[in-house]
């Protein structure tokens, strides 16, 4: 787990002079070591900051360079390869066969195994890797830089290019330090932030900076960037496996999760776990606790100060976490958070690189920070379970989708109009209104509508016409529409939605904040539920094994019955968040008004002050539920102050307003 940065000089331009500075910009990602490599002919360079997890010796130093008569090959690698031992064995066999000599390993790191896999098989080796990663391999022999990002996008990778240089980095901060790529804002990305609270797909806030999407690889030469190709897909659904029974599927799932957890506990440093008391994290802890070489597994959770049960549908996690900890015999450390965390929102936005409007990110940071203070350097997380096994409310809501198509257009149009009359302060009315307001959309778009926090018409009304300058707001849905269109006809709507979940919500939201926040604390988070074998198995499950009536993750729950208390397994679902609705209307009300004042908005020029004022008013009256979009507007303004106004972001402590 590290931070990486690098460049390729385009069209014989001189090498970037700022590689070391860019690398320093992500020092928080790798406090243990740093390194830099420049191609002898100055065509390219790579650098990295290292958080040492496997092979703590200097042999794990990066960039790792191998010299061949035709040139040098240098790798910078961020992440972990869980099958690196097996990969090393395969490399040894292949090296004897293809090169006729054994490999003289320098150390035992996974990066060295990846380097050798590349030396032996070139870019075709990418599908062999089981793990989370973002990497850059400069091949001086051919003058090509290979970039690749893992199947689910657990590790981030951004790129940017101008006439002189192509750059890539784990974080936007480092890219902006590397060269002048321009800081023009991307209106479509901003529209997406407001609508989804993150940008699905490759866009970022800056026109010049793009994400390399999960499962993609690309090669860059001094002539420029070639077309990216997909070397793996997050979810590939075939026909369901009709031979599976409930018992055999549950057995298999339990076995696969156990194997995944144990495989992902490989580390030369202490490993702990998140424990919210929900099904996903509890299941991981249930298997991890037996694999700790005799010591008690250290688990971490958070408690919310002064939030009454039932507020905003809030159900306290802590009692469940404590119950699971006691049941499984693990240590539980509780980190208490309250409204004072709002003071760190600006820091959070700067750290996230993208103005993700989700305060849950801070909870993750506090937990990682506490774990790190206790010497734990790796935490296992339950991220991904909801996305592959149907764990969100929208998955249940989706089960009514076939009935929508039975309704005539005129009825659906009427339902949409009715949605405006529902008062949004009541959680049920809020959800119903959300369901109805897209009643007249076509089926594919309705699927996407479940991810929207704000209707695109409302989003369009918020954006200043001058800022949009011809950008079409109907492009907001484009990446998701493309992803839906890629699926084979006949794919069940639930599987279509899980595909959208993993491609976008998981990668661009959950995993992004998990990576950035854990890295800010100098800690690695691993996600055993995204183990490839386990995920592949879930794609063969019949739909009703995932969502049965109101019960999501049904087969997962059955699988865990022998190991976890029933009241934990079947507890109501809660988020990982904070009572933001209440905070924005009470504790943070002044900050909302100041950060989104007419003067501030007019100066920024992104949003139409009148539109924003109207949205805030409607939200406070309960006519629309725009808590999170309003928070997104605040995050965008804050992000601009850090990334656009202040030059290069320095993670300085600022507060809203």
């Amino acid at each position: 787990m590290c931070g990486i940065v690098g460049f390729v000089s385009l069209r014989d331009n001189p090498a970037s002079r700022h590689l070391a500075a860019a690398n320093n910009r992500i020092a928080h990602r790798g406090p243990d070591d740093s390194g830099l490599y420049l191609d002898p002919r100055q065509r390219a360079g790579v650098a990295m900051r290292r958080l040492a997890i496997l092979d703590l010796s200097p042999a794990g130093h990066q960039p790792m360079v191998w010299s061949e008569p035709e040139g040098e090959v240098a790798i910078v690698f961020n992440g972990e390869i869980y099958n690196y031992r097996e990969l090393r064995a395969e490399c040894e066999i292949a090296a004897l066969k293809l090169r006729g000599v054994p490999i003289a390993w320098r150390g035992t790191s996974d990066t060295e195994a990846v380097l050798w896999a590349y030396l032996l098989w070139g870019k075709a080796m990418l599908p062999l890797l089981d793990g989370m990663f973002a990497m850059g391999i400069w091949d001086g022999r051919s003058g090509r830089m290979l970039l690749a990002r893992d199947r689910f996008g657990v590790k981030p990778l951004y790129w940017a290019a101008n006439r002189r240089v192509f750059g890539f980095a784990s974080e936007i901060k480092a890219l902006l330090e590397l060269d002048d790529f321009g800081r023009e804002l991307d209106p479509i990305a901003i529209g997406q932030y407001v609508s989804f609270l993150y940008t699905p797909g490759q866009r970022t806030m800056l026109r010049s900076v793009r994400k390399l999407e999960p499962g993609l690889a690309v090669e860059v030469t001094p002539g420029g960037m070639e077309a990216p190709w997909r070397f793996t897909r997050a979810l590939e659904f075939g026909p369901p496996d009709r031979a599976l029974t409930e018992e055999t599927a549950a057995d298999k799932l339990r076995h696969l999760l156990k194997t995944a957890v144990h495989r992902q506990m490989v580390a030369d440093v202490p490993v702990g776990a998140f424990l919210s008391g929900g099904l996903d994290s509890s299941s991981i802890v249930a298997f991890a606790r037996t694999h700790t070489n005799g010591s008690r597994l250290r688990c971490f959770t958070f408690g919310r100060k002064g939030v009454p049960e039932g507020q905003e549908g809030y159900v306290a996690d802590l009692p469940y976490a404590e119950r699971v900890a006691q049941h499984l015999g693990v240590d539980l450390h509780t980190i208490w958070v309250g409204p004072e965390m709002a003071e760190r929102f600006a820091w959070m936005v700067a750290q996230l690189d993208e103005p993700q409007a989700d305060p849950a990110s801070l909870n993750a940071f506090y937990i990682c920070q506490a774990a790190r203070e206790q010497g734990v350097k790796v935490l296992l997380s339950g991220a991904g379970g909801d996305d592959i096994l149907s764990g969100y409310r929208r998955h249940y809501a989706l089960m009514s989708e076939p009935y929508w198509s039975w309704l005539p257009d005129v009825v659906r149009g009427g339902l949409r109009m009715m949605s405006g009359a529902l008062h949004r302060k009541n959680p049920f009315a809020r959800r119903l209104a959300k369901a109805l307001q897209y009643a007249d959309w076509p089926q594919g778009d309705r699927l996407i509508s479940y991810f929207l926090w704000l209707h695109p018409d409302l989003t369009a009304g918020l954006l200043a016409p001058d800022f949009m300058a011809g950008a079409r707001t109907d492009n907001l849905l484009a990446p998701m529409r493309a992803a839906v269109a890629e699926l084979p006809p006949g794919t069940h709507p639930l599987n279509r939605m899980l595909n959208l979940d993993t491609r976008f919500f998981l990668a661009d939201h959950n995993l992004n904040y998990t990576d950035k926040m854990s890295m800010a604390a100098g800690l690695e988070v691993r996600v055993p539920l995204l183990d490839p074998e386990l995920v592949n198995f879930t794609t063969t499950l019949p739909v009703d094994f995932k969502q049965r009536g109101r019960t999501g993750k049904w087969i997962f729950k059955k699988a865990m019955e022998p190991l976890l208390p029933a009241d934990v397994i079947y507890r109501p679902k809660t988020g990982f968040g904070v009572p933001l609705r209440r905070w924005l209307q009470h504790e943070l009300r002044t900050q909302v008004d100041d950060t989104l004042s007419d003067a501030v908005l007019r100066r920024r020029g992104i949003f139409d002050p009148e539109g924003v004022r109207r949205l805030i008013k409607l939200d406070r009256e309960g006519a629309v539920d725009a808590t999170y979009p309003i928070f997104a507007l605040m995050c965008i303004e804050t992000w601009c102050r850090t990334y656009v106004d202040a030059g290069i972001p320095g993670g300085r402590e600022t507060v809203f307003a």
Partner: protein
Amino acid sequence: MKILHLVYECLPGAYRGGVQKMVAELALAQGCRGDEVEIWAIGDGPVTQLGPRTLLRYFPGRIRWGSSALRQALLAGHARFDLIHSHNTFLPLNVAAAQAARRGAAVYYHAHGALDPQLLRGWGPKEVKKRLYVSGMERRNYDVAQGIFGLTEAECAQLQLVGAKAPIFEVGNGIVLQPPAESLAVANFRLVHRVPYGGQVILFIGRITHKKGLHHLIDALPRIRERFPEALFVIGGDREQDVEYVRALDQQISALGLIDAIRWVGFLDEVGKRAAFASCRLFAHPSYSEGMALAILEAMAAGLPTVVTPGCYMSAAVRAGVLTESAQDAGRLAEAITALFANQEAAARLGAAGREYVQKYHTWDAVAGRLDRIYRKEPEVAPFIATPVS
């Protein structure tokens, strides 16, 4: 020679079922040896040059009901060929070939395992229908033939019981020898399916149906793991062909606590098969009944020591000492497999002998050579004479 193969269907690149593939590969081998070969098949498509001197022609019709166009062309044009080789047991194309034989054509029939005794035994409607068809219709076809080909001794014995006048010859299956798998493909197979390098890994490839007897191998696995706790069983094949059977296997695996010891790797294409052969230590085929399973020959050609059951009808190879035959029983299978895992030298010898045997007798070139001698009625190729059945 000018040879005409008749087969119910032939879709190069998308063969459904083994017979189509075998006919095409045999025809290609004959073409390469210098014969002029045509394949006539029911279907729709242009005349296709499959290889040197090897043409594929389609005639409209339906597999089950035959093709009147093909029949007419056959009756009108059989004289262009030195012989007709028909591969259509239980189908009307065999009748058309017999009509041509009655007009003077030299016709040979290839049963391709369809008359395997196991398939004709019993009193189920399917078995009874097949027996009636064989005695009433297929025997009349065979009566006018120059020769009938059975894949194995067992099938030849069954053909003899039909009572046809034509001589019977044992002509086994052939395979196309494949180069060793690419190291990347092998690494990919092992890493994706989590098959450890050098471990005690048993491989099965084939249709996953009750006839294949996989439940015996799964029953054997705990006994094998008593001696080799890391032993794994890799199953290559489509789980959809016999869902009830696969479900029973899953339940058996769960009940025996073997989930971590079984790797379902799905249907394997040619590249996948080669990678699987290179990744596993031993091939096992515990079938109740086989014509002559190509997977067994392919595994042997890849140098894998191979364990079969009597239902695989590989008695000639067993007599030659190039594979191990075990009773179809968990204990015996476990013994045979454990012995090979325990004695790596013996296993390597068996694998090498199997490879040599297949190269000698079961390449399509070798099969085409044997057929050539039969077609030419060379005296050293004696027809099959069964041991009297008591």
